[in-house]
């Protein structure tokens, strides 16, 4: 088999490194030796896909997983998954998870003394449609304290996990909210050197997807690595 065209590697500064001392957990968990540069092969250019049979069509709506509705501000988070050339990434799985409106996760290790909400689990998933569009209905997560440093608070965020077409395009990220005063103080948000790359993690309030008398709309597009034109392109 001839050499295959792989996926683009990130431009300098647009992805975090591993050791980022302000984020204390990275100190003991980051490799100390340089990564070994590997040409992508069939192993990296292929990857898992998840069809409609592995997806619950109702799982896009995190406000309807229980008998009653969760407390908090209902929001609609929608956007497109595109590659770096602007092509839609269709039928790809997106998994999300988040804290409830009080800033508490439904996880046994979350010790924050904010209340759990019996009507909110905080996880959802969906597939993008044939144009790369996705849509979730949820509640706006609360900020929450963590032990990274004195008086440390995570800005409100929703975790996103995406696969894309290949092992090489796998991405886990976090979506933030515009105008959050905690963003400038957060070592995780600030781990990426490139300011515009960082700011693209902030969703945008969107009146068009806001539903009257129902829920505010936020737009968040996710870009996955694009395909190289030839195996030799750097």
């Amino acid at each position, binding site marked *: 088999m001839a050499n295959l065209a792989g996926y683009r590697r990130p431009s300098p500064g647009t992805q975090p490194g591993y050791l980022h001392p302000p984020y204390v957990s990275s100190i003991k968990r980051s490799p100390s030796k340089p990564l070994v540069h590997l040409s992508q092969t069939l*192993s990296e250019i292929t990857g898992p896909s998840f069809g409609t049979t592995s997806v619950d069509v109702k799982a896009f709506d995190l406000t309807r997983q229980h008998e009653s509705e969760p407390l908090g501000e209902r929001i609609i988070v929608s956007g497109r998954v595109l590659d770096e050339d602007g092509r839609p990434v269709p039928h790809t799985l997106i998994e999300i998870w988040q804290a409830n409106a009080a800033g508490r996760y439904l996880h046994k290790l979350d010790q924050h003394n904010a209340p759990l909400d019996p009507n909110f689990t905080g996880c959802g998933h969906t597939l993008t449609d044939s144009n790369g569009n996705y849509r979730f209905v949820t509640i706006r997560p609360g900020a929450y304290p963590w032990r990274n440093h004195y008086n440390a608070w995570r800005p409100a965020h929703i975790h996103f996990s995406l696969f894309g077409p290949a092992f090489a395009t796998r991405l886990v990220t976090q979506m933030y909210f515009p105008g959050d005063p905690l963003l400038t103080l957060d070592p995780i948000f600030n781990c990426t050197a490139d300011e515009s790359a960082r700011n693209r993690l902030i969703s945008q309030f969107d009146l068009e997807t806001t539903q009257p008398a129902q829920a505010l709309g936020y737009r968040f597009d996710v870009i996955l690595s694009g395909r190289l034109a030839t195996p030799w392109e750097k």
Partner: protein
Amino acid sequence: MKHQATTSQTVGPFFRIGLERLLVDNLVPEGVSGERIVITGRVLDADSQPVPDAMLELWQANAEGKYAHAEDVQKKTLEAAFHGFGRVFTEEDGSFRFTTIKPGRVPGPDDGLQAPHIVVSVFMRGLLRRLVTRIYFPDDPANREDFALNLVEPSRRRTLIARNSSQATGQLEWNVVLQGPAETVFFDC
């Protein structure tokens, strides 16, 4: 290029609530050919302390060396039940375990064949971006000519090759050491 790929962020400490639904610790459902192998190991930090909150994702070809993916156009058989994706979480003691088959050889660069391997993504609190590594199989003569293993300095290659378990036959052991003298080789790919 119109856009730049979205910045990666850590999975954080609470990812299980969102990612557990897709836990796959047996990559070989009924009807998939190949000898079952159990691979166990631990994820360890810079102080050799267990990492109890890591996730490993696995991707591999079937026993003939074919991926369940449209871009694998090799004329090899692919059983409908085979997918090749796995996702496991570590326990309190940093351990993980999954059942699979040894994959066949798949094409590599320049018309070569790669030695049988599983590609692995490692996620955890503290990692702002996934780490990528590979699991190779012990005593396989193809390891000597594998292009990826040969990119690695000889003294570190063993971090990529699983060991036969002293505990159970048909079981392999392979650890992820994040930092230190025994640090696992991680790839930029």
